């Protein structure tokens, strides 16, 4: 697990791009943090970096699930679990299809609302907290190698 202090919103965006560099199809990204902690900002940077159309990316709080095509192959499923009451609520949204097709990266905001996930562990868990002057963040990769391979966000500071 690695921790950083993100002093401003650009640092949150940098972290999104750093995480994107280690992702591959089939991965699940689990993000937690209070309202306004920077979850959607992080996902926006991550998705843009992977080739999603910036105009398509937005908060899924209302529609629950957004889907962004990534260039020629693959897609990002961007999910807001705030209003879901448990992992079983993921099934009617298309969970099995996302898991079977293996071309998706599923990114879940408010992931603790749907913990434990029905069929697969997240490749990376990200926790964000409001602190004075910015945010603190913890990033925990299931695979140590990918954790070690992830570049640190340039403006991230040691906690």
């Amino acid at each position, binding site marked *: 697990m690695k*921790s950083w*202090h993100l002093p401003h919103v650009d640092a949150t965006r940098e972290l999104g791009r750093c995480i994107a560099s280690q992702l591959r199809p089939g991965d699940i990204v689990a993000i937690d943090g*209070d*309202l*306004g902690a920077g979850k*959607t*900002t992080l996902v*926006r940077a991550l998705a843009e970096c992977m080739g999603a159309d910036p105009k*398509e990316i*937005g*908060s899924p*709080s*209302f*529609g*629950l*699930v*957004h*889907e962004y095509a990534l260039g020629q192959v693959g897609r990002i499923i961007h999910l807001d679990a*705030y*209003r*879901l*009451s448990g992992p079983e*609520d993921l099934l*009617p*949204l298309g969970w099995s299809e996302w898991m079977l097709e293996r071309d998706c990266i599923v990114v879940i905001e408010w992931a603790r609302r749907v913990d434990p996930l029905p069929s697969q562990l997240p490749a990376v868990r990200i*926790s964000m*907290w*409001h*602190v*004075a002057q910015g945010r*603190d963040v*913890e990033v925990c990769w299931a695979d140590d190698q990918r954790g070690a391979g992830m570049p640190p966000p340039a403006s991230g500071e040691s*906690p």
Partner: protein
Amino acid sequence: MLTLGIESSCDETAAAVVHGDRDVRSSIVATQHELHVPYAGVVPEIASRRHLECITPVIDEALRTAGVTFDDLNAIAVGHAPGLIGSLLIGVSAAKALAWSLDVPLMGVHHLLAHLHAPALDNEPIQYPAIGLLASGGHTTLTLQHEPMHATVLGQTIDDAVGEAFDKAGTLLGAGYPGGPAIERLAQRGREDAIRLPIARIRGDSLDFSFAGLKTALLYAARGTPVGRGREARFPRDVDSLSDDMRADLAASFQWTAVQSLIRQVDAAMEQHEAQSLIGGGGVLCNTRLRQELEQLAQRHQVDLRIAAPKYCVDNAAMIAGLGHIACAQGHHSDLTLQARARLNLDAQGC
């Protein structure tokens, strides 16, 4: 010409009978708000099950209120995009079945374009070109229209929709859900200039909107600057500890800032484009403060202000039927392969 409109894109099951494009003979809306209150938002699976239960009685009620039967209908129009896919499917399937069995034209209508037609219902035709502000729980979009069937998007939110910001502010201040009416009620007792909150500045001359920063600023204003680091970080106070006056001031200041964020971009759009009308649609246009500010803006630019009546601001099927009629009259119609679509760009196609 009587058109039956069907709308099921989110949490309202609605059906309406409209004569021509503006003369509403009936408009029935079965709302699910109470079902979704515990979740502070719409839960798709609950919504689509409820649509399935409501759709047939709601259509029957629309016909009965209009004093017509299925045989009197000349066309079926349905909101087919955008929205929650499971919800849209119920309306689209019902519309297809009816169009097929009655052997009348079927028309798929873009939900957002229909909101921009709503001000014409039970009223005079809209004069074009028009600048449109569409503001709701799922959308915040600024448009330019030369006719009802096509809209060019001038700007839209880059993060949260304004209605979503109201909902989150409602939750944050413990005012309740839906946040729009709850914040407006609370704001009546508060001072708009009590707390200074940021109006997002978008780079360059963009007409886009942003509401994520406002939401976060409200959070800090309400709960203070966090103390501690990482996992241990905490806000120094809960919203419960705030006085009623403080909560009212926060609500009023939030509402003022959200409204000014909208007005600033509408004003810029009117500077950039010639228009005869300013159109307002979507649930957030029920907000009294926003309506007042739009009135002033329209006066200053000397354009006709056309805000939908409150009952046509929220999701309804009369706007679907009215716009569906215009589409049919222009010779467009859909066939039985019409698909429900969760997302569909307003620019991409007329209806």
